[in-house]
């Protein structure tokens, strides 16, 4: 009796254990199910490289190149800002800050991670957007640059915490060895700690970028959402995520627009999948 019960319980545990695999597969499956149909109307190359995104014109033009470029532009901008600042602050928190400041700073970074993206988007709208508008004297502050700054900010918690872990996991005797040779603290960090933790820091950067590419609400609220190929960073752009979020409500289920938005979902899913798998490899390399 008890054995039978435990047998069932253990099967249930195993089922829940593999549930994550099941859900990832389910997500992929349903994106494919709804998204692949778009390729009946456009070819893969026209979809990925088409210059025009006019999903509701007749016939619809479903080229997502402007959206891809929008995402790339915003992401590059965010990466340029967030990588040095994020890694720098991870070094500061892990290696330099006194113990009391460490706790406060870590709490600050954790706090940032907890703020909902729609709140950050809202604050960005009322502070960052007018600022960008005035500084660069633009007709609108809803630009790729505003999006990059905002996203850089949102990527920080990921970059800082993963990079910090990477620094902590460097064996103590590396550092002690360097000090014993008379190196300054900075020389130790630069010559010993950073190279030793490089794969973890790389993973931190990748996960941060993954966060940026996937971010939706804040980016939709402050990048202006113009689906044209951007020439500079000071114009409105529309990202892949914002396109889905903004247009899904209007798309007719089973229509071409609907299929196209799911196809964008496939693209996003694959990007995040690749980033996460690679980052995971880097993290495991560090452990070994």
């Amino acid at each position: 009796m008890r054995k039978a019960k435990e047998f069932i319980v253990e099967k249930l545990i195993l089922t829940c254990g593999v549930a994550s695999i099941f859900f990832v597969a389910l997500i992929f499956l349903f994106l494919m199910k709804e998204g692949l149909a778009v390729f009946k109307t456009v070819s893969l190359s026209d979809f990925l490289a088409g210059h025009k995104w006019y999903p509701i014109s007749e016939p619809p033009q479903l080229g997502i190149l402007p959206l891809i470029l929008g995402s790339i532009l915003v992401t590059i901008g965010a990466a340029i800002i967030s990588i040095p600042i994020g890694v720098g602050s991870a070094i500061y928190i892990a290696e330099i800050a006194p113990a009391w400041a460490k706790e406060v700073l870590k709490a600050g970074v954790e706090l940032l991670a907890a703020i909902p993206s729609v709140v950050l988007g809202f604050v960005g709208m009322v502070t960052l957007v007018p600022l960008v508008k005035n500084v660069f004297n633009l007709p609108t502050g809803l630009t790729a640059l505003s999006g990059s700054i905002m996203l850089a900010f949102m990527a920080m918690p990921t970059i800082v915490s993963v990079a910090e872990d990477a620094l902590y996991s460097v064996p103590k005797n590396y550092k002690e060895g360097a000090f014993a040779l008379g190196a300054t603290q900075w020389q130790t960090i630069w010559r010993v700690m950073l190279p030793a933790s490089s794969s973890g820091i790389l993973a931190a950067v990748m996960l941060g970028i993954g966060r940026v590419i996937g971010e939706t609400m804040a980016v939709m609220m402050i990048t202006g959402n113009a689906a044209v190929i951007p020439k500079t960073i000071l114009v409105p752009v529309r990202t892949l995520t914002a396109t889905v979020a903004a247009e899904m409500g209007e798309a007719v289920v089973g229509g071409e627009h609907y299929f196209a938005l799911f196809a964008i979902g496939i693209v996003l899913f694959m990007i995040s999948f690749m980033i996460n798998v690679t980052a995971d490899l880097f993290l495991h390399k560090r452990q070994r």
Partner: protein
Amino acid sequence: MRNPYRTQKIAFFFLLLSTLLIVVPVGLIVVIIIQKGLPAINWQFLSEVPQQGMRAGGIFPAIVGTFYLVSGAILFALPIGLLAAVYLTEYAKDNLLTRIIKLAIVNLAGVPSVVYGLFGFALFVVFFKFGASILSGSLTLGIMILPVIITTSVEALESVPASFREVSLSLGVSKWQTIRNIVLPNAVPGILTGTILGLGRAAGETAPILFTVAAFYLPQLPASIFDQAMALPYHLYVISTQVPNVDEKVRYGTAFVLLALVLSMNLVAIVIRSKFRKKKKW
């Protein structure tokens, strides 16, 4: 030859600057929202429905909607996540399956929130025909917070000393009894922390509920899990971008309530965690 100590001074200055560039704006954001949002908060704002096209009145339906969504999400995610964590800590062997499970969890955590929205729409709204409803939204959010619950629960279970398990097993007590009576009770604070963090995450997300449940404006409260509902984060999005001429007070007030809700959950989680660490008996 450059002076290494001057180099160090300059480097440390820039590192400190980077840290401040993150932490100071965070502080500012919180201060701004408290400063401008707190004056908007009164009983009326919290307990009434929106009026004049959401330009005035309260945000009660959005609070209730978020409450329903978050409860539904946790009801779904907690049992699955907890048992998954039990599997990983107590049963999983060091093999390919375990490796794939861990990779799947990492990926689940990395899927963009808007993709969850698409998925939830395709599976729950369309395929299962739940429609845009609290049920669809809760399940979508539930799957999204699963990785949070699993990883924190795994941590909590791993913090229970292996010797407790050995003692229990050495008495002829079965594995499941050991988990039930020794491991789980001692992991409760950690599991609770993870659950609350998951709740906070679910409460703040917008993209996954956009097409699965969120109503633009719905003055009456949902009557069943098959109804649509308003939700705080979506409401904030709507009144900041979709409705012109909304009183600043209403926007800041809404942002304040959402932020306060999410941050207080995180605070509770942190308090439980630190209290538990101090009280730990082993």
